[in-house]
């Protein structure tokens, strides 16, 4: 199993990320409907769909693809999701700029930058019942695995598991941020919609990268 990714060849992972958002749009809407205004799937799939169209015309490597996704989110989605996911992908693409390959440390740097951008912009904290409850544990799990010298693939698996746990944990939280915070205690008992989309995206990313790492071994 290889320990670096060929970023130019990793572009198709973006298609997986788009697909998971588009396929789960209804579910994201109904999660958002329980505590918010029920449009999270609509909001997300708008920008992601548009990105897919652009990618079909001019396929990109992962770094430029993240950049294109970020631009599209900032261009097309108002509200909170455009800027939050927009800066997530924008700052990750900035880290990837000039790189042709990505290793475990590079991924950690990238994820740190993306998560920092979201926290910086949205001022959400762990436990507020939001994206952040997926992003922060995912980042921390990746870094902890890296500190244990797990393989890149193993670190991705750790991140993926932590993202899933973080998502599930939002069920018992009271929303302190976003639209759901209006409900106070009544928001408890519902999974958070933004955490759900974030969990889907990280899962598609991890899976795509793991697949590529496995493939490169086979190919080598």
């Amino acid at each position, binding site marked *: 199993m290889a320990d670096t990714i060929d970023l130019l060849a990793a572009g198709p992972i973006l298609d997986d990320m788009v697909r998971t958002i588009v396929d789960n749009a209804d579910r994201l809407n109904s999660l958002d409907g329980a505590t918010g*205004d029920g449009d999270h799937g609509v909001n997300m799939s708008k920008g992601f769909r548009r990105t897919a169209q652009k990618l079909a015309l001019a396929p990109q490597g992962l770094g430029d693809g993240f950049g294109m996704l970020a631009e599209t989110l*900032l*261009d*097309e*989605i*108002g*509200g*909170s999701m*455009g*800027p*939050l996911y*927009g*800066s997530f992908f924008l700052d990750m693409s900035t880290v990837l700029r000039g790189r042709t390959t990505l290793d475990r440390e590079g991924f950690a740097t990238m994820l740190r930058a993306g998560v920092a951008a979201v926290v910086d*912009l*949205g001022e959400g904290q762990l436990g507020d019942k939001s994206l952040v409850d997926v992003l922060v544990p995912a980042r921390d799990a990746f870094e902890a695995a890296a500190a244990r010298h797990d393989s890149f693939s193993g670190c991705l698996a750790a991140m993926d598991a932590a993202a899933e746990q973080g998502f599930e944990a939002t069920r018992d939280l009271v929303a302190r*941020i*976003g639209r759901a915070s*209006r409900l106070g205690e009544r928001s408890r008992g519902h999974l958070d919609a933004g955490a759900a989309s974030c969990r889907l995206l990280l899962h598609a990313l991890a899976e795509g990268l793991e697949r590529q790492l496995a493939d490169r071994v086979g190919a080598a």
Partner: protein
Amino acid sequence: MNRIIDDPDDVVEDALVGIRAAHPDLLVGTDHPRVMRAAGPGNAGRVGIVTGGGSGHEPAFVGYVGPGLLDAVAIGEVFASPTARAFEAAFKAADGGRGVACLYGNYAGDNMNVKMAVKLAARDGLTVKTVVANDDAASAPSHDRGRRRGVAGEILMWKTAAALAAEGADLDAVIAMAQKTIDATRSVGIGLSACTIPAAGKPNFSIADGTMEVGIGHHGEPGIAVRPIEPARAMASTMMDTVLADLPFGRGDDVAVLVSGLGATPVMELYILYRHVAEILAGAGIRVRHRFVGNYFTSLEMMGASVTLTRLDGELDRLLALPARSIGLTVMGDA
């Protein structure tokens, strides 16, 4: 649905076509479909004044673009923040070489999109400074003003800042004036019926017949109390109690007053409300120097009204009186 619309998903686009057609003397489009700027020569040599926000509050926000008021505006979907890119494009449209003041309301989406847009604009060497309106006294306790929403008080902040910019003041001075204005401004709303976002097709909040929601937000955000409906006199007392105690306003103060309908309340009733507001102010020894009564900042077809007070010093008073022209507010300036 009793609406004058075509595709409910296109209401903003369709309305903007109409607005441009109706006001070629005031507004022109830009490269960005969700950005409009003031018609005319542009503002070379002056600080640009920009705002942005969701649609459905007409005449806010686009209706305050014009000479002596806003230079450009970013326009969002109904009740949703404009995109970061739209704000960025509005900054560019308003840029006259001396920087841009983005004066907007305190909502999560707007905050984030403006922050991103400022970052994007900075990459192109454009300096944008911001003031966030938080005049809605009912939306958080006074020790937590940072969480308060921006409502109709924004209009007064645009007016004073734009008047100062028109006189050639620099960006820091314009920003300071906007901040001073909004710091001296307090608002409160009462909602009497809900409204429906066309694309949603049904209201996403409700106000039972015979009740009023004191402190309601411009998108139906919950207020501080749901109460049986009261006579106008009592509504005015409730609203003025909230607003006066908050700054606080006191005997001897000079103020500007803005009573805005939320959309569907007949204008007659706004004047009935104003009558009581004026009487309460007179009783409290507060002098009204500027009065605005009408549908200045609405929420689609919501019934209800908001009251906004700004405490004036000589400078604010002077700037409010300077001429301005826009769809929503025209000041002849001959007063």
